[in-house]
């Protein structure tokens, strides 16, 4: 995958982190803990970057440093050339926290109006934007319902809408599909891909490796505060000394010939079998099939249609 061509090449990187270090003093002792240790990475404009690592590896601290919610002990972070300590940098950032909590006393539309106003949006443009975003996240039916009555998935979707309210150039997503069902998860993934198509950079923190693999151009693997590996996903995941051949409609005779040829050349055949679909794909196919059956039988379902597969 490569960055979008809609972004001018002269655009500064969406995120530029240099030697980023965060040290926390330990309470009740003179010791300290290094949460992030000299982490450097760049997220180019229009790129989807995934930061992956186990719990406690430093993902969230790195993300907070990028958002300016924390100041680094050492090093610098810039968003589109502006230091993250500069509050103006945040007009370019949309942030969706993990398990987002918003003011429960506000309705969906009021929540978007609140965040829109914080970003300087006003009047008719804000009203139109609220309508667009509620449609985008499929919450038009709940626009006047208070968030106290929203499900976890609905909260995640309104969180995504507030992240996009000011049309940011960078979207930071912390475990965006946490607690979301497979259909919702799929929708969020599709949305990330569409944001990328529109030239919006995405910085994604997740430990759902399959999800990261599907959407990210580049990934960084962080562990114990250090960035262990970093680079384009295709390069990182390619096994240099192995080759994969995927055949369709191959006869047993053809497979026998290929096996014989491999043996004759002295190479090792590591595996031979049918590729598996994912459980998620299987689930979505079954839901789609069920809906199609219901439609053909003339039964109307209250459930929304699953999204088209990319």
């Amino acid at each position: 995958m490569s960055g979008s061509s809609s972004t001018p090449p002269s655009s500064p990187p969406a995120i530029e982190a240099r030697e980023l270090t965060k040290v926390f003093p330990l309470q009740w002792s003179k010791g300290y803990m290094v949460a992030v240790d000299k982490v450097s990475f760049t997220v180019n404009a229009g790129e989807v970057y995934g930061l992956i690592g186990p719990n406690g590896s430093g993902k969230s601290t790195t993300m907070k440093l990028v958002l300016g919610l924390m100041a680094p002990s050492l090093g610098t972070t810039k968003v589109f050339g502006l230091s993250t300590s500069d509050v103006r940098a945040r007009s370019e950032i949309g942030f969706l926290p993990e398990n987002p909590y918003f003011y429960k006393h506000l309705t969906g539309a009021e929540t978007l109006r609140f965040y829109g106003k914080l970003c300087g949006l006003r009047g008719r443009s804000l009203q139109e934007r609220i309508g667009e975003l509620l449609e985008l996240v499929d919450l038009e039916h709940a626009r006047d319902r208070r968030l106290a009555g929203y499900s976890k998935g609905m909260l995640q979707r309104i969180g995504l809408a507030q992240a996009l309210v000011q049309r940011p150039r960078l979207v930071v997503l912390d475990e965006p599909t946490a607690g979301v069902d497979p259909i919702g998860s799929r929708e969020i993934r599709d949305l990330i891909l569409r944001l990328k198509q529109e030239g919006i950079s995405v910085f994604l923190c997740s430990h759902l490796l399959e999800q990261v693999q599907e959407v990210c151009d580049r990934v960084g693997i962080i562990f114990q505060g250090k960035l262990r590996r970093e680079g384009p996903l295709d390069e990182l995941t390619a096994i240099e000394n192995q080759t994969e051949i995927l055949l369709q409609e191959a006869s047993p005779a053809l497979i026998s010939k290929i096996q014989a040829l491999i043996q004759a050349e002295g190479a090792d055949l590591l595996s031979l079998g049918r590729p598996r679909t994912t459980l998620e794909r299987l689930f979505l196919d079954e839901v789609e099939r069920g809906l199609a059956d219901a439609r053909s039988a003339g039964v109307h379902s209250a459930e929304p249609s699953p999204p088209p597969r990319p």
Partner: protein
Amino acid sequence: MSVPNHAPMPGRPVPPMFSPGRIWTLAAATFTQLVRMRTFYFLLFFAVLVFGMSNVNLLYTAEQQLSTIRGTSFGAMWLFAWLFAVTATAVVIPRDIEDRTLYTILSKPVPRVEYLLGKFFGVLLVITVALGAMLLLSGLVLEFRKAGLIAETRSYLEQSPDLTPADIQGQLDAISSEGFHPRLFTAAWIILLQAAVMAAATILVSTFASSSLFTIIVGIAFFLIGHGHRIAVDYWSEGGATNNWLAWAAKVVPDFHIFNVHEKIVAGSTASPLVMAEITAYAGVYCLVYLLLGWYMFSDKEF
């Protein structure tokens, strides 16, 4: 999901470093939050109290009855204002931190000082509206009761052959003077000023406190110290003892006795414009200092 155009807006204006509009947005959200927490249910209690007082006929004179309604109303307003300033302010910021709502707010182009000011003005807005409603209600009750008492007194006095019309009018004027008077607005203003100082002090505490409960306890302790302030200063300075540390400590907490002028106004005195200006400036300086200290504490706070 069909995605409308989310491409960044071309030529996005640079957000201002300080925006009264953002402060107002945060204040309005805080106001809505507190209102939807059913804060104004307190007004029901107030209404019952004031209507109850107006119908209790203790063996008071007409003037005493009106004075009692006035005193009780303003006592309740004073209690509500400072107590609400502490408890509401102690809740709004720690709750945002606990719920992580603060993350999404501060990840927008919102300077931290604007966030604090938004919370401060939001709480003040609720107190102002509540005080306004209570003032209106007590004014209506006072005037209604005054009209009744004047009618009763007039019919009673007119039966007395010894009284001249001038005597009767004099007595009726005395009752009338105990009704609602515009000077009561100044008493409400002083109550609001004291609540503003309490809210600013509580904002300062909540920038470093670990919980709402701790903030409320410190806020109430602050209020009590402010009222014991004058006694303590007099005690320490007895015998001409001077201690710079104590002198500075005494300046940290305002002398809340200054705000007790509202009691005298409610009782019938009038505060001169100079006194009102001094009290307003006194409260303004303390609010400013506490908010600046709160900003200093909050600016480097990590979440």
